[in-house]
């Protein structure tokens, strides 16, 4: 779960990481007032949960309250990567003499937290990592031992940070580490951490990504979820306990198991069409859950057919077939549905589905081919 910049900065402030003075605004007039309060020169920053805000024109420096109002009106009418901007952060402008990158994340390969720092901050750190890997310093941290003082010195030295900033830099690293641990973050990042013209270190941007699996420990952080900032279908999926990701194709997919769900999408693509979604209904397949999943898929008007792929291991195929029929009666889908149920009691399932509007398929390939053929009949 991603946090907005302003939410992340609120957390940074609690841990005494220096941030610019600033406040959140939901209207142009509010932004104007904040600009006056902050003394004129401010940065207006779109609050959306995607990267690339700057390039999209969502971060602008303004010099007067009038300009703040005008620019905020523009930004609040923008969509950045399909997400509408509902709030802006108004931060006092800071004079920058140097930009540093600082972040802590999970390193899957080393199975440890890793601290990443770079003297080339401010931009896309992945680009820096690819183009000039020598400008990136990485340091793994023992999760049982925590961050050590010598590691802070190591990292400061390896990004050529002048000694006069080491103490403050160390305080910021320790705070970031504490945030990463205390919040169960999978990423806690400052990009850029700037050295100001007055020789102070300030976190100009803030990004925290939380581990969804650890939210049970952090009800206060779970409350920060911005439902408006994510797609409707994904919110709904969470509500019904199914894992859903919307895609751009026209064949809806309903599958039990994440790996099998991906494989089902893959075969549609392999055969020359496009899946409309990823959907894992998880273990079992009660009619309630199938009906909820079906509604989710059908909410996308691009969907012209649904391919259901269920492997019955412990779940029995005949029970899944009954669940499907009940769900179809309830939802009354207007697109053809191809069902491929394999595993325990698949013969019984086939008999149950015979004579219904559901189309049976024996194999995954056959199921995908049938769904694609049906879609092409309707929409070549």
């Amino acid at each position, binding site marked *: 779960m991603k946090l907005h910049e302003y939410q992340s900065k609120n957390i940074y402030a609690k841990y005494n990481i220096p941030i610019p003075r600033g406040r959140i605004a939901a209207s142009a007039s509010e932004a104007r007032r904040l600009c006056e309060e902050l003394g004129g020169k401010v940065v207006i920053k779109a609050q959306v949960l995607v990267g690339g805000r700057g390039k999209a024109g969502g971060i602008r420096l303004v010099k007067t309250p009038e300009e703040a109002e005008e620019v905020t009106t523009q930004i609040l009418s923008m969509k950045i990567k399909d997400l509408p901007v509902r709030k802006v952060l108004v931060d006092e402008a800071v004079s920058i003499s140097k930009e540093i990158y600082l972040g802590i994340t*999970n390193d*899957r*390969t080393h*199975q*440890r*937290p890793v601290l990443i720092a770079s003297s080339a901050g401010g931009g896309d750190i*992945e680009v820096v990592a690819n183009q000039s890997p020598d400008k990136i310093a990485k340091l793994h941290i*023992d*999760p*049982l031992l925590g961050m050590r003082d010598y590691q802070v010195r190591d990292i400061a030295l390896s990004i050529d940070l002048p000694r006069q900033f080491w103490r403050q830099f160390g305080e910021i690293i320790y705070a970031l580490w504490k945030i990463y*641990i205390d919040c*169960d973050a*999978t990423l806690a990042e400052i990009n850029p951490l700037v050295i100001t013209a007055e020789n102070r270190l300030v976190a100009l941007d803030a990004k925290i990504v939380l*581990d*969804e*699996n*650890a939210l*049970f*420990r952090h009800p206060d952080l779970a409350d920060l979820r911005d439902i408006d900032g994510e797609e409707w279908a994904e919110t709904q999926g969470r509500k019904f306990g199914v*894992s859903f*990701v919307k*895609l751009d194709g026209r064949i809806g997919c309903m*599958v*039990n*198991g*994440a*790996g*099998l*769900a*991906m*494989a089902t*999408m*893959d*075969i*549609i*693509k*392999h055969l020359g069409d*496009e*899946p409309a979604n*990823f959907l*894992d209904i998880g273990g079992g397949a009660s009619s309630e859950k199938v009906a909820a999943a079906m509604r989710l898929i059908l909410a996308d008007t691009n969907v012209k057919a649904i391919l259901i792929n269920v*492997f019955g*291991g*412990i779940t029995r195929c005949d029970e899944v077939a009954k669940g499907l029929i009940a769900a179809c009666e309830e939802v009354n889908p207007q697109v053809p549905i191809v069902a491929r149920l*394999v*595993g*325990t009691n698949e013969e019984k399932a086939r008999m149950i589905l015979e004579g219904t509007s559901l189309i049976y398929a024996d*194999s*995954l*390939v056959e199921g995908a081919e049938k769904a694609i053929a049906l879609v092409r009949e309707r929409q070549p």
Partner: protein
Amino acid sequence: MSILVNNKIRVLVQGITGNEGLFHSQQMLYYHTNIVAGVSPGKGGDWVLDGKVPVFDTVKNAVEVTDANASVIFVPAKYAADAIFEAVDAGMELVVCITEGVPVMDMMRVKEYMRTRKTRLIGPNCPGVLVPGEVKVGIIPGNIAVPGNIGVVSRSGTLTYEVLYALKHANKGVSTCVGIGGDPIKGMNFVDVLEKFEADARTDCVILIGEIGGNDEELAAEFISRQMTKPVVAFIAGASAPPGKRMGHAGAIIEGSSGTAAEKIAILRSVGVKVADYPEQLAGMV
């Protein structure tokens, strides 16, 4: 011979009195797995599964009485790390953690702690191990595979079942199937299992089922080119997955530009691994 488990293994189930734990313990018993004990704090002294399996309050206590040497964990995610630590401290040789949704930080601490211990961990978020016709430690349906000479290792659950089932229909049998799980930080990885298959007399070839995210498949390819003499075929799920979106499994996400299916398929092919276009195809390739 099989890898990791055999019919001599003495299994303990952590979380045996919960719905999942009880159901799958019964399934394991049907498969003649030797379940010697269950653990459920506060329920020590009870007997479950028609009075066949004694329940203990702690793993330590269960081991003292029953000599269990492997544990299967079904406890809820918030208690899973503690259950693993407990099993490791009680000296288990093998721990299979079925639980899904364990916080990443918990798993990093577990992994760090286990570096100096001899216990092997499989999972979390995994279906466990099946030796067809012999023993199952986990939740892989017992009836979908027959004994044979093909080793199967996978990051997925139902996708693995699908492949086992296709093999069974093609009259091909499996030596051992290991589901290593879909989490980013986990116990055994592909290389650990491939190493075992390479040394296993009963295994003649291996099916590897990977997916997007991380670099487990890349490390496997490196190992295969360096040390594997047995043929390996593979399927990688997620060729149609968009970057930056988590596809169900906590570990199935293309981060930045790395971890794509195309990248993994290319590197596996470059070391001579045949990669299937779809899972059912695998049965015809071994």
